[in-house]
């Protein structure tokens, strides 16, 4: 069972993690705004996560922790 943690307030909403996820786990939360004023990433299909860490690999702000 994979587990994703986000430092939501450091997210800049660039969406690179969303693009790279092979399982469509992630999406930008269009109904939320973080401290920086961005729509932060969130896991919309967490059960599909395979902990490949592609999202974290492409995240420029190092806000994602991936656990398995």
């Amino acid at each position: 069972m994979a587990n994703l943690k986000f430092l939501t307030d450091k997210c800049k909403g660039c969406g690179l993690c969303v693009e790279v996820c092979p399982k469509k786990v992630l999406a930008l939360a269009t109904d939320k705004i973080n401290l920086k004023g961005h729509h932060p990433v969130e896991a919309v299909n967490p059960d599909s996560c395979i902990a490949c860490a592609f999202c974290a690999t492409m995240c420029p702000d190092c806000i994602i922790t991936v656990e398995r």
Partner: protein
Amino acid sequence: MVVFEKPHALTDVPMHYCPGCTHGIVHRLVAEVIDELGIEGKTIGIAPVGCSVMAYNYFNCDMIEASHGRAPAVATGVKRALPENVVFTYQGDGDLASIGMAETVHAAARNENITVIFINNAIYGMTGGQMAPTSLPGQITQTSPYGRDTNHCGFPVKICEMLSQVDGAEYLERVAVNNVKNVKNAKKAIKKAFENQINGKGFSLVEVISSCPTNWGLTPKKALEWIDEKMIPYYPLGVYKDRSAKEAE
């Protein structure tokens, strides 16, 4: 089990880079390598002038902020004073390939035992998107508003190709950080550049083709695609020099 987390050598300070800017990825790769080699306590980093001027806030090792283009000279001083420590510079294209060209070439010529991380994003980011020494022919920037005219302002500088002709240089590789595979390769190259220093092999430079979505006027995703479409064809990835490997053949 943790599959992926922030490396220790990276501080918790939020980075000031624009959304989708790949500087952050390269910072993390450098920090991961520092962690894996267990060298944080003896590493001294040199920040440039440019977008990554505040890199000194993002690495947990000791840091020095150099004047524009002079990071290799500063690193030379540090390494000569502390030869047992690990010294790296982190420089952009304006810093390394324009104003600091002399310092770059001569540090390589001396085979200065330092590691150079060179970010090539074909633009001056911090000042708002002016033409860089690495801007592509025809590239529109604030100071080449009609596209870079090579008849007027010359051609881009290819650092890896140029330095490969310098006898002193030990290791030169060009990588990119526009997809997962390239990021993994970039990390391997960065790790090798640090290991070379630890093993006393000398001047090791990794040129990282990086994106600047803001000043390229592209979304973060499109900017990564632009690297594949425009940057890599002009700046082919690969090892340009690996003296030790060649000698071992």
